[in-house]
């Protein structure tokens, strides 16, 4: 479903991504790990079409999305670290903004779709400003999924959330994969990575696949040497 080849990105003189390669099928969940500032968010925002790469190709089912940006909208549901929500409007209004489909379909989805699974359909009229951090994140995911895109791209979905909320999000990710969707997420937590079918370390601007059952200690060891590389780049 997704093929990425040679994605590069530079910020001034610093090369963040140096030819990232990636291939994903439906029903897969890829966890991307790496040190702070290694380019995870940059890579995800490029995947979501929010940033343009300096070079490379991103293909969804063989079609290059860098030549037709509508493909990003069709294939990618992006959940950034911060919640892109209209804080002064209600849960329902936010869902309406991103929902692709008619009102009946949305009503049905609110009752039994992603919003219901994520536990936000019980409070459709509540203003976003009155939601807890966890509920905002859940709503953010529901809004991203309102476009019915098969690939869910999440940037540190569990950051600053309580354990119950993290569990609910993990549960949803499992459900999404089971239903044929794909997920790419970045995280610093092993528990969150436990839902992944594959894990890659973003190191030196490229993705290095590692064993998905890798221990935390081994994973940390994979990062070593990054600091010297970064220092060398700067």
């Amino acid at each position, binding site marked *: 479903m997704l093929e990425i080849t040679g994605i590069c990105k530079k910020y001034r003189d610093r090369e963040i991504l140096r030819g990232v390669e990636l291939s994903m099928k439906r029903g897969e969940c890829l966890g991307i790990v790496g040190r702070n500032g290694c380019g995870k968010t940059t890579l995800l925002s490029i995947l*979501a079409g*929010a940033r343009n790469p300096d070079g490379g190709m991103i293909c969804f089912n063989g079609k290059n999305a860098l030549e037709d940006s509508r493909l990003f*909208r069709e294939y990618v549901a*992006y959940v*950034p670290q911060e919640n*892109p929500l*209209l804080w*002064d*409007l209600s849960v329902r*209004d936010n869902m309406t903004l991103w929902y692709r489909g008619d009102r009946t379909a949305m009503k049905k989805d609110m009752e039994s779709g992603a919003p219901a699974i994520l536990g936000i359909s019980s409070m459709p009229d509540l203003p976003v400003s009155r939601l807890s951090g966890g509920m905002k994140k859940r709503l953010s995911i529901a809004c991203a999924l309102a476009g019915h895109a098969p690939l869910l791209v999440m940037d540190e979905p569990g950051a600053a959330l309580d354990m119950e909320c993290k569990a609910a999000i993990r549960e949803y990710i499992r459900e999404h994969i089971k239903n044929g969707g794909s997920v790419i997420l970045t995280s610093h937590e092993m528990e969150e990575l436990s839902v992944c079918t594959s894990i890659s370390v973003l190191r030196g601007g490229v993705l290095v696949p590692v064993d998905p059952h890798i221990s935390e200690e081994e994973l940390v060891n994979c990062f070593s040497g990054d600091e010297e590389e970064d220092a060398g780049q700067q």
Partner: protein
Amino acid sequence: MSRTYLILEIKRALRRLPLVLAGALLLFILIGAGAFLASRMLYGEGAVGRIRVGVSVPEDDALGRQVVEMLGSIDSVKSVCDFEYMDLEKCLDELGNGGLFAALEVPRDFVRDIITGKNTPVIVWLPAGAGLEGRLFAALADAGSRTLGASQAGIYAGNEMYAAEGALDEIPALEADLNRYYLDFSLDRLNYFRHLEVDGTGEVDTARFYMISAFVLFLFLAPVPAGEYLLSHPPVMKNRLSCAGIGAGLRVSARILGLFLVLAAVSVLPVAAVCAAGLIKASAPLWAGWLMACLAASALVIFFYSFSQNLLGGLLLLVFFTAAQHFLAGGFLPQVFLPSSVRAISGFMPSSVLMEIMKSAVLGQWNLPAAARAVGMILAVSGVGVLLERRRS
């Protein structure tokens, strides 16, 4: 999706309506009081107050005192001036300490000299840097002396004519009649105090001028309580919207449209009330001008908040810029009172553009050049706003 976004932005804006209405009420009271005071201070009798004039007449000159009393009793003089008799020294003291706005020094044998044709002048003393009252009195005295000169010429001409006809006995009656006629028909105070032409007001009168000025100021400041709506979305939201095909242009336009509807909703009541009270006539140009002014104000306010990127910055920029440019546009003081260098840039101020539109609207006239300037202003500030939004996304 663009349609949904537009509807939701309008919904967000209209949610601020109660807050903006409450702020508007307060603003109306403040601006209304300010405009009323400014208007009274410049033109109103009450605010200008009575012009206290000291009159120094030689003690034994009964005739001179009689003439001054006669002048002081003329309706047009009596309605603005209070003549107080005192010696010259006291007159000058009071003039120095601000107790008097002017002093009249009537020379000895003033009346006799008029009769003999010697014409000894009455000296008018004004304080250095005379205020509005002093200047008004100077204008009044100047006008009075010209009128007296004309009447004197008329009286002498009558004397000559009667003397030539041999009707010397009739001369006193003729002089009395002519004096009465001249005094009755001269010194119409309204000519000097009411019909002051003011560039800023153009064809509208003072009350309407300040009504328009206050309304324009209100349009700029009324959105302050809706500050959070006026700001751009956070970067993450902008990014997400851009990815969904909702670009900077649509985002800025939607906010302008939302604020425009709020301003229109808030300002329609006072406009309708003024129409209902008969102060201005409801007409198509009025409603068109009102909508145009609301739209232009919305575009400018959104630009300020987009530029500043935060609530406090937006508020300060809006308030200070609005106050400064409104002054430069001749909104607080009509342009005639402003220095010529300021007057040269007045026309470029947003308040000036909006006041021009509203002036025509109040007069029920279509003003295409003013409308074109307003459209130009809307396009310019919106365009820069979009560029800023795009650059910062």
